[in-house]
């Protein structure tokens, strides 16, 4: 019978879908739980608050956390104005559809550039050509450039969603373009922008490749005092080095602890982004 073949095929399809979905999600969940439990075993207040000793084998990760926070804040301060300006130019000051489309494609391609290329370019330009040596500023700048496409696209999407009546009302009130930008366009698209920035930042915080040649060293740095020759320690690079000494059990345990702290940081930043993301979704529906 034809229909019974149809039903059998359908049952097989449903079975396969459930099977692959179940395997995927449960394996990933298992891995995640493993990561958390291993991390929590080696986490303590002392681990968080004391500096590293004996090349990562004992001691904590205080300066690594500090360094990662310094990088994150630098990135935030650089990416905020740059992507705001870029998005305003892209969606307000330029109206030619062709130029807009080209810029958009350009941004998508930039978004795909492998992060290690940022590291190499930064190494050549900042570390060697400008002679800055390793510096926290270079790291923050490169990370900002890495997430710039994401944040710019987020803001310009937010601007495109603003209902035209708001802008027309502004024009009818006789507002100048600058006034419209600051009192209508930016406030109305702020949630989209902020959620884009925070999601980008969550990605930047965990990156190793752009900063390993340009900003961070494994040991011997504390709080940077200048820009030139002022490297920092950072969590991703710390883990990267400890993994390569993974035959040492204590180094390994510290790597788990550091990974957990890094993941927590990423989750924290994405968590802060969540309400803004929801609001941006609501704005999109109106």
């Amino acid at each position, binding site marked *: 019978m034809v229909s019974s073949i149809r039903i059998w095929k359908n049952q097989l399809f449903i079975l396969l*879908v459930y099977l*692959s979905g179940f395997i995927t999600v449960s394996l990933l969940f298992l891995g995640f739980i493993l990561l958390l439990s291993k991390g929590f075993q080696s986490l303590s207040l002392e681990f968080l608050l004391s500096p590293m000793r004996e090349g990562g084998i004992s001691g904590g990760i205080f300066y690594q956390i500090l360094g990662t926070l310094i990088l994150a804040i630098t990135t935030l301060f650089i990416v905020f104005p740059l992507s705001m300006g870029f998005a305003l130019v892209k969606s307000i000051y330029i109206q030619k559809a062709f130029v807009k489309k080209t810029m958009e494609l350009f941004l998508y391609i930039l978004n795909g550039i492998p*992060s290690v290329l940022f590291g190499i370019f930064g190494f050549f330009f900042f570390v060697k050509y400008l002679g800055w040596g390793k510096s926290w500023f270079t790291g923050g700048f490169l990370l900002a450039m890495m997430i*710039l496409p994401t944040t710019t696209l987020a803001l310009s999407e937010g601007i495109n969603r603003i209902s035209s009546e708001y802008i027309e009302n502004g024009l009818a009130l006789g507002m*100048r373009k600058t006034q419209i930008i600051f009192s209508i366009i930016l406030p109305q698209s702020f949630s989209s922008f902020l959620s884009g920035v925070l999601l980008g930042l969550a990605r930047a915080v965990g990156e190793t490749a752009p900063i390993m040649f340009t900003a961070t060293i494994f040991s011997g740095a504390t709080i940077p005092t200048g820009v030139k020759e002022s490297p920092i320690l950072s969590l991703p690079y710390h883990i990267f080095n400890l*993994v390569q000494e993974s035959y040492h059990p204590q180094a390994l345990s510290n790597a788990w602890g550091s990974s957990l702290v890094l993941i927590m940081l990423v989750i924290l930043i994405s968590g802060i982004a969540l309400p803004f993301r929801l609001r941006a979704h609501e704005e999109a529906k109106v």
Partner: protein
Amino acid sequence: MGILVFVSSKAILSKPTFPFSVTGAFSLIFTLVSLLFFCGMALFLLIQGSPIFFQEQLSFITDADWFYRINQYGAASMIYGTILVSFLAIVLSLPFALGSAILTSEFLPNSIRVYVKSFIELLAGIPSVVYGLLGVLFLRPLIFKWFAPFSPESGDTLLTASVILAVMILPTVMSLSEDALRGVSKEHREVALSLGLTRLETFVHGVLPRAIPGIIAAVLLGLGRALGETIAVYLVIGRADNRLSDSLFSLKPLFEAGQTITSKLGGSELYIAYGEPTHWSAMIGLGLILFVFVGVIVAMGEAVNWLGRKYQHG
């Protein structure tokens, strides 16, 4: 009509009402800074990377002889490693990614779907160095044990790198494919079901054709990620130079250590290369090849997306 008004009111904004505004000037400066950086980066790759193509000519990409001490550079084994590892990663992750995307979008009730989706998106945010840690500690011994009949030298193999990459890109591919499937309107499913089609037929004939551009774009994006991933691959691939088997279709290289473009670029050889023009140019040449690969794949993904939108809106 609404759209017409929308366009025109923003078009008014684009006309300079004042010859000069501070906001406009700053926006322009910031845009120029960003564009300058990216153009500088592209120029850097082109100018510093191209001399090696003049020196080694085609043998830079066809020969597997990278010996920087005798000034000989052939990157074939790295290009081979990059392509093999990322394609295998896509092949490995696609059934799982698509299966779970179909499950969440077509079968799960909305209340569970939200949790699955947020969990998967959480995984997409986990830093690559953490995936590297998991790969070194769990996958490496497993691969060594399971594939003992193939007598691998260690657990650091191209296969290990592919599996890690497959896990890393799975959340991206799954989440974006799920978005594409959800983007198909409910009516298509309801009409097909009401005609008496089974779930499978509904999916294959009603949903899939409309979601396929989005799924292809998701796969291409995953591929782009896989090509450019550095840290996790670096930790598990073994970083052995110039391994290239005689036959392209032999499975042997999968169980041997190898090298990808990114694992080469991420290594400390970069410090050695700086200051020796040919060696440096060879390294940047590798970067240039990677850049071209990724650029082509992202552009392809955008083209597919664009075609899909055009097709859907008639």
